[in-house]
């Protein structure tokens, strides 16, 4: 029974020597890992949003005792996020085509977009018109915005490291998979901003 390597003819085998070492998307392990992370963090966002609405039922006035958040910084960020989807998707596609030149340009663009997002995010916190310790409303909107900022910062940092890698590090096919998955994570940061933006800025106005 142990003929394997010594007497290969005695045992039927499934030969996988010809399989490759890179796979993109749903075939790759990294895709599933990233997806797992996205589900965890998506759940986290959903629970904070649920807490927001729960706290809203505890009071008659909403926002309680403070002005509505100022619209412009969040809205500008929303527009930048939506616009970033185009270079981000192009970057993802270029990575899957193993196009190093395009990947470098795409990474630079997304890195800069993330800087812009973070810069405008600095104006979003004062735009909330309250502090985290003003009342429970203040606590929950600061947490919601803070949590999204942590994700934005994390993905910005990941993108910067990948940019450095694709310019100065060893170029391997495996790293193109990382770029592609990083682009997926950017999609997550963009798409979660839409409901969070609506909750923070528009729920006090509409509901």
């Amino acid at each position, binding site marked *: *029974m*142990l003929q*394997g*390597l*010594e007497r*290969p003819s005695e*045992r*039927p*085998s*499934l*030969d*996988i*020597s*010809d*399989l*490759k*070492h*890179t*796979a993109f998307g*749903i*075939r*790759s*392990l990294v895709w*599933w*890992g990233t997806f*797992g*992370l996205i*589900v*965890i*963090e998506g*759940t*986290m966002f959903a*629970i*904070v949003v649920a*807490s927001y609405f*729960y*706290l809203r039922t*505890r*009071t008659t006035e909403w926002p*309680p005792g403070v002005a509505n958040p100022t619209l412009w910084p969040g809205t500008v960020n929303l527009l930048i996020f939506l616009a970033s989807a185009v270079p981000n998707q192009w970057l993802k596609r270029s990575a899957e085509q193993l196009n190093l030149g395009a990947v470098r340009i795409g990474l630079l663009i997304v890195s800069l977009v993330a800087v812009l997002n973070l810069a405008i995010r600095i104006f979003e916190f004062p735009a909330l018109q309250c502090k*985290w*310790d*003003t*009342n*429970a*409303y*203040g*606590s*929950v909107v*600061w*947490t919601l915005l803070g949590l999204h900022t942590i994700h934005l910062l994390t993905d910005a*940092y990941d993108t910067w*490291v990948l940019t450095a*890698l694709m310019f100065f*590090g*060893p170029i*391997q*096919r*495996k*790293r193109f998979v990382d770029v592609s998955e990083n682009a997926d994570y950017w999609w997550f940061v963009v798409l979660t901003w839409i409901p969070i933006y609506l909750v923070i800025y528009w729920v006090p106005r509409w509901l």
Partner: protein
Amino acid sequence: MNPVDTKPIERSATDELLQLAETWREPPGFWGWFRCVHHQTIGKRYIVTAFIFFLLGGILAALMRMQLIRPENRFLGPDLYNQIFTMHGTTMMFLFAVPMMFEALAVYLVPLMVGTRNIAFPRLNAYSYYLYLFGAIMVWVALLTNTGPDAGWFSYVPLSGPGFAPGKRVDFWAQMITFTEVSALAVAVEIVVTVFKLRAPGMSLNRLPMMVWAETIVSFLVIFAMPAIMLSSSMLILDRLVSTHFFNPAEGGDALLYQHLFWFFGHPEVYIIFIPGLGIVSTIVATFSRRHIFGYMVLVLSLIATGFLGFGVWVHHMFATGIAGMGRSFFSAASMMISIPTTVQIFCWLATLWGGKLNIKLPLLWIFGFFFVLVMGGLTGVMLGVIPVDIQVHDTYFVVAHFHYVLIGGAVFPLFGGFYYWFPKITGRMLNHTLGNWHFWLFSIGFNMTFFPMHSLGLKGMPRRIYTYQPEMGWTTLNRIATFGAGLMFIAVLLFLINVFWSRRRGVVAGENPWGAGTLEWATSSPPPPYNFVELPTVNGREAVWDAAPNQPVVRGLRTDMREVLATNVLDADPDHKELMPEPTIWPFLAALATTFLFIASIFTPWGLVWGLFPVAVTMTGWFWPKGKDKVNQEIVEAEDAARA
């Protein structure tokens, strides 16, 4: 002869085998300890560490039982008693039950059971272990310096809030949650990816071993439930440290929000602990009935149904808080519904045992104990689902009795069965049978002596968490019986430890498949070599070893000079591509140290969160950046891929 068997000993002379062993060898020496990334090594560390915390949690329980042995006892004061019962629950739930039933068993067993060489994301796996270890040490050091958490294992507000719990005690509890939950979440992702992408060819989803199903479903429960407690404990620590008002009614917050968030995690948590136990039961029942499990599909669907229903019952922990009528009825009905899939499973096991050729050995004995204890706990569970009963016995010893029957019955009994079952695989030697029998009977009798009287104590009105009681309450005799029972359990566990230490060196040599079991971990030597299998197996049925064809093919074409594994597709496990697994590395350990600094510093100043980010970013980048052997190997295989294309 076992057709999938690929025992290494007989071919140890071949160069390929030596090379394979060299490639997968864990780094030796003191510093090597911090660089290990193989799932067997990390899995064994999880098992040993979680068991040490089981013993520590047990010592705390023994202290409480000694305090309650007679009325108006002065053995422990009220403040110390508060810390001890809080740390008993915290240790048992967060430092023993989840890390043992989920992380430890899944990390060690799942890669072997699906027939691959390592877990997906091995460095993350090492990182998760260190985080768990450091978080656990942190909260125990806090206890030993009289700063132990003292607001109960669920730290309800307002008791745990800034108004009633000054000092750092509760902060250590909240941060311990962050440590352990990050760790469990990391393992959950690894297990899902290992099961979905690294199964042996032929192991389609409908051939997954029951234990693997159980750990996969638990991974999903962890993924959806643990964010809730990470948030609630973070909100708690924010309320305490930077004056947010989530749970402060004076500023529009709400104390019940904490309970909702906690139990949205807390009830699935019970199933996170319980479902691996069910997986163990299905595994042991099939092996010792010597037949395929009865109703495989029904069992899998029951596990999934339990997982789903587990998210719909959290309010039954809050019936006494004045939930509106409709909500109460819904959650009461959902709580009772959960007994349906559990009952279905029990009947499937009974049918398997009925139709099998029974081989009554120690693992099966523990499963019989499980049936008895779990059914008892399940019945009081149905009683507690009835709201008037629940409100009557809320926060009494009746509830203490119920959840110990469910948790010890649902997790610890199968776990001990699992220890007797897999110990030969992990160490290569059998546990002693006579000592094992003493262990089982003393533990079972001791357990029932300890916890059965608590039903009565609860009905007689004895509340949980009181540090003493007056003689005229009429609780003395039952408490004495309970303490005596705890003593028996203590002796039983001591015997088990003696058995483990003795058998590790002197036990009967097990051979590769001492129970004649059907899953893939038995198709390699005991203990398994660091590469798990000489040649990766292919699978022809639900019990891979039993169902293998006479000349079942093996996988060929994986390199022996690099840590290469085969990735397969999600549904049918057809070969898809190859992946290189990382070499040993110090970076996950360094990243865990940096993360520990961040978590602990932020207890003392919010700026810890800011300054702590830098070392985390640096170590994570060092972890990610391609270098050394990993980089060279990747370049070699990619060059070969290109040449073939």
